């Protein structure tokens, strides 16, 4: 077995037993990147030198008896998490040469625990997209099948983990951007409760929806990474002071006493037959593990895409106002006036999808339209939140598909942004409600593409999610299942 094939949990044992060093493990991943990334295209930057230094430091800490579970483990980071001294592009030309002078809190936390960062991975520009095709640099490929998208916006996180270029990755999820690529690439993707993980140093897309979370090759690794990144941060005033469980303690066999809700609206029109079959099988696995199932209703599901594209775009139009070419990022140096500098910089620096969302958001917030669009959407958001509150009165968590179909081919939605927006219908409401969700590999389509199963829980019940996800994984036998490349 090559070291890069290990899960985080397995690597931990090997490192602690002295069977392998962090340097060997890191070199194994870096070699893997060299041999497969020309085809997979996960990485925007590979930080070989830094990674080897971190690995050597980790080896010293391990020799000295550190108990940090992530010490010496190689990770990739979505390229919108600020890394001190390492280019952070957000997949955008406007930040092509931006080198942050500080680390995001989650990056700092991982570094303090001795983790190794092998590089920064591709994503849709400013996390706006569902295929990573909106990346201004390289577009990651689905490691399971040539010509198919890895999903997005954390496409490079998912492809780098599935292609075994690293043992885990941090992504961000604003409307499904962790869970959807995890599902399309056959890995585990967790979107924590809003406020569970610090957003400090996560370049903002939609501040009331964004959340950082892990992509891993099994559920145990997801719990281990959650332990490493969760917690209140005084530098993020929206992070929540909430007791932190040991997430790995939830990984026990058997679901007796657990009630799983099946939201009927998630199994409606447009759901691919093979996806439905995989989720049905997942429901049966949970039943066989001792859980009870109950049908529930989320009556406003059909409105979530509309609400999302108004709220997310409104917040984005405000957040992205900062890219003006004045103090960092790309600037059009030919502009003669300040106003022209703003316009030329933004027009040349932003890609098509980002411009579209800025326009929608600016419109929804503009004088005369605020009540009809932004306020209306925020009111319907309340109704969506209430749907979940009501559903959780009769169950502990919800099971559903992650996406209506398995991965699709590049360019499938070219020129029709709305069609692509609608593919996010099953993941968006978790962000609007701030609840946690996880995507767990459930099976494969006849074409050999992975299909994930989504579990969503009440606020701060990542432990329940992980417990059910762990049992689901035991039933499918798909832990650490990776493609031949």
């Amino acid at each position, binding site marked *: 077995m090559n070291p890069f094939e290990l899960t985080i949990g397995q690597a931990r044992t090997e490192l602690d037993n002295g069977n392998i060093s962090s340097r060997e493990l890191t070199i194994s991943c870096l070699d893997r990147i060299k041999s497969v990334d020309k085809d997979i295209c996960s990485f925007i930057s590979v930080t070989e030198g830094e990674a080897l230094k971190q690995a050597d430091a980790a080896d010293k800490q391990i020799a000295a008896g550190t108990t940090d579970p992530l010490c010496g483990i190689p990770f990739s980071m979505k390229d919108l998490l600020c890394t001190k001294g390492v280019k952070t592009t957000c997949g955008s030309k406007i930040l092509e040469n931006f080198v942050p*002078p*500080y680390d995001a809190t989650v990056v700092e936390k991982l570094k303090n625990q001795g983790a190794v960062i092998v590089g920064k991975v591709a994503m849709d520009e400013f996390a706006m997209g569902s295929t990573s095709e909106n990346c201004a640099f390289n577009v990651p490929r689905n490691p399971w099948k040539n010509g198919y998208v890895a999903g997005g916006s954390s496409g490079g996180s998912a492809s780098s983990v599935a292609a075994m270029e690293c043992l885990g990755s941090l992504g961000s999820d604003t409307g499904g951007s962790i869970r959807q690529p995890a599902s399309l690439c056959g890995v585990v993707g967790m979107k924590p409760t809003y406020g569970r993980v610090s957003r400090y140093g996560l370049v903002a897309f939609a501040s009331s929806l964004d959340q950082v979370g892990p992509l891993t090759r099994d559920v145990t690794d997801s719990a281990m990474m959650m332990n490493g990144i969760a917690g209140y941060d005084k530098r993020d*005033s929206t992070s929540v002071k909430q007791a932190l469980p040991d997430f790995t303690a939830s990984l026990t066999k058997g679901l007796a006493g657990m009630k799983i809700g099946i939201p009927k609206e998630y199994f409606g029109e447009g759901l691919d037959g093979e996806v439905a079959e995989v989720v049905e099988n997942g429901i049966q696995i949970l039943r066989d593990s001792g859980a009870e199932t109950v049908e529930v209703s989320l009556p406003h599901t059909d409105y979530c895409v509309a609400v999302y594209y108004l709220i997310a775009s409104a917040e984005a139009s405000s957040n992205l106002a900062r890219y003006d070419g*004045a*103090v960092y990022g790309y600037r059009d140096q030919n502009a003669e006036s300040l*106003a022209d500098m703003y316009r030329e910089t933004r027009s040349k620096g932003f890609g098509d999808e980002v411009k579209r969302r800025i*326009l929608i958001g*600016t419109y929804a917030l503009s004088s005369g339209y605020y009540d009809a669009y932004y306020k209306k959407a925020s*009111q319907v958001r309340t109704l969506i939140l209430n749907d979940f509150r009501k559903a959780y009165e009769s169950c502990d968590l919800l099971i559903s598909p992650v996406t209506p179909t398995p991965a699709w081919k590049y360019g499938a939605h070219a020129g029709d942004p709305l069609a692509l927006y609608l593919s996010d219908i099953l993941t968006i409401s978790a962000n609007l409600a701030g609840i946690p969700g996880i995507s767990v590999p459930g099976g494969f389509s006849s074409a050999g593409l992975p299909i994930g199963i989504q579990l969503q829980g009440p606020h701060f019940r990542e432990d329940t999610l992980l417990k059910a996800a762990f049992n689901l994984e035991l039933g499918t036998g798909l832990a650490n299942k990776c493609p031949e490349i």
Partner: protein
Amino acid sequence: MKITRKEVEHVANLARLNLTEEELIRMTGQLDSILSYVAKLDELDTTDVVPTTHVFSINNAFREDEMQESLPRDEALLNAPRDNGESFVVPKII
């Protein structure tokens, strides 16, 4: 039509974006179809529904007013598109 070419021009101006003729035509069409889609929210009666702008109602998050280290000037200027060693340089404003 939910949005006209003129309104897209107005919004682009507010957002400090220059759109080419091709972009303007394409964006007007795409924004129109997106806004026509989101109009489905009008099916819902939301009188008296309190808007949610934030899932958890965190009020002002205060901290002690203490001196803290700030970013040194040379580091702050490292990403400057143009600087004079002391400050950011932009085109003449006045």
